[in-house]
């Protein structure tokens, strides 16, 4: 055995004995498994479904004033696609790393853009977030750190966006923390949305991905403002107390009207006691029922 071969063997043994420093490879095409919140991530939530959102009064009032036609306004057509769209949208994600060509170090992880969400560039090189007075953008500004084998990203400086695609909104003061957790072929994202303007508590959701069998290229460009036909000066909306969809969850699922309006208490198990006697289970599902023919 030559010294060269011995060294090679030794190096291989070392590699086997000591896993590489905690940073793991997240790159690839990841298909979303929309087995939970299927309606919300697919066709979109019911217009009055705010249950489980820790709204404050401002957040609720903002949501109840929303009319779907707002997305036809040139000023607002892009308003929905903050980085939170990654957590509540339909599609999978494409992830890759950007390296410094001189050092080989990863300076950023990128979650590619999709539909109208801008790419999320997660800076790993220790750069600070911009000043609180810096301009905000649809993309926002994101940094990341590795905790063991979990990548944690933190996004600030976003524009206003949606929390659910039914008018539940996030303000431009909202921040997002996402943990990227990989177990074998499973990638789970756990995300916390903090918003001092519209929420009383953090909003927390999770979702899972599996490797996509086909290449999933990021789709560009991100949202582009155009004239979608709403007359200039018109802002489709509901006035306070006039939202015409407020009984839809009751009609479809028997859910008490008060629960539809959200609030932090609707996130916790004890809330079931409060609505138990007001719940009336419908006889049969009548819309978006899923099953073998369609999830």
């Amino acid at each position, binding site marked *: *055995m030559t010294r060269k*071969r011995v060294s090679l063997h030794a190096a291989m043994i070392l590699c086997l004995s000591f896993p590489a*420093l905690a940073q793991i490879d997240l790159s690839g095409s990841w298909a979303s498994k929309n087995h939970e919140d299927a309606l919300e991530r697919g066709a979109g939530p019911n217009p009055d479904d705010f249950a489980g959102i820790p709204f404050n009064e401002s957040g609720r009032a903002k949501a109840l004033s929303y009319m779907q036609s707002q997305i036809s306004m040139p000023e607002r057509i892009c308003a929905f696609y903050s980085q939170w769209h990654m957590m509540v949208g339909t599609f999978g994600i494409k992830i890759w790393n950007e390296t410094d060509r001189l050092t080989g170090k990863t300076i950023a992880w990128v979650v590619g853009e999709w539909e109208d969400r801008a790419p999320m560039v997660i800076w790993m090189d220790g750069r600070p977030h911009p000043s609180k007075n810096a301009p905000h953008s649809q993309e926002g500004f994101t940094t990341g750190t590795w905790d063991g084998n979990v990548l944690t990203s933190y996004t600030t400086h976003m524009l206003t966006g949606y929390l659910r695609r039914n008018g539940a909104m996030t303000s431009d003061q909202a921040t997002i923390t996402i943990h990227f957790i990989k177990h074998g072929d499973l990638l789970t994202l756990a995300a916390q949305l903090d918003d001092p303007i519209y929420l009383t508590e953090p909003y927390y959701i999770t979702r899972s991905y599996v490797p996509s069998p086909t290449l999933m290229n990021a789709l560009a460009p991100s949202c582009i403002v155009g004239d979608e036909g709403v007359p200039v000066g018109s802002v489709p909306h509901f006035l306070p107390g006039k939202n015409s969809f407020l009984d839809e969850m009751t009609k479809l699922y028997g859910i008490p009207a008060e629960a539809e309006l959200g609030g932090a208490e609707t996130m916790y198990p004890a809330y079931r006691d409060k609505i138990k006697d007001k719940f009336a289970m419908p006889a049969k599902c009548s819309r978006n029922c899923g099953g*073998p023919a369609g999830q």
Partner: protein
Amino acid sequence: MPPEERISMGYRFANIFGVLTAAMALPLVLQAQGGGRGGPPSAKAVAPIDLTGYWVSIVDEDWRFRMVTPTPGDYQGVPMTAASKKVADGWDPAKDEASGDLCKSYGAPAILRVPEHLHFSWQDDATMRLDTDAGTQTRLFHFGAWKAPTGPPTLQGDSLASWEITSAGRGGPAPNPDAPPQGKGSLKVVTSHLKAGYLRKNGVPYSENAELTEYYDMLKERNGDVMLVVTIVTTDPQYLREPFIISSHFKKQADNAGWKPTPCSARW
């Protein structure tokens, strides 16, 4: 250098390297496999995260399937087979009540979707215990070479547990006790030998052939909250077209506030 001397030197080099490698690798192996002076340390002793204590469900996903009884026929999101739909369409809670099967929606594949409080504790050094207040269920996670008892399948099945311990790796920093829990490792639980039950309370079935793989991850958030995220993968060749993959999350509580044991219900 003559060839024989080169070979001899190569072997000496290999021996030295081998000894060094083994010495350096030993702590990691001990940590991962449980070897050590006086016998292997227990699963409890090597736990990379501390799940013990009380947790509360945060229900902001699948709200209408979890916080109220889902509407009959509402199966959205579940990759059902045609056979599954046929069974689910025949859901009759009165029948379950009559047969005493009140807990069919509280089995291992569904229990972490129920709005509830969890209590983790160590039953012994190799067995973690998970109690729920909703449905008053108990799951036992067995580490090591545990052998499942024979007998009929059960609601919570037989669960084999293992730690997935994150290594800092060569040259990495020494373990920091103040590091967030997400840096330390995860609990993996594989459950089989399940009695048939419901994935959702409105009768979406899983069969006795179902198997469950779960990953428990603890995460510390910027506001100080400690969260538990459980990624749940259920496979069932009889009633699922593909693995049913969901993730549930819970917030750590300082105490047992809100702990309210309630019996199973077939209707609520």
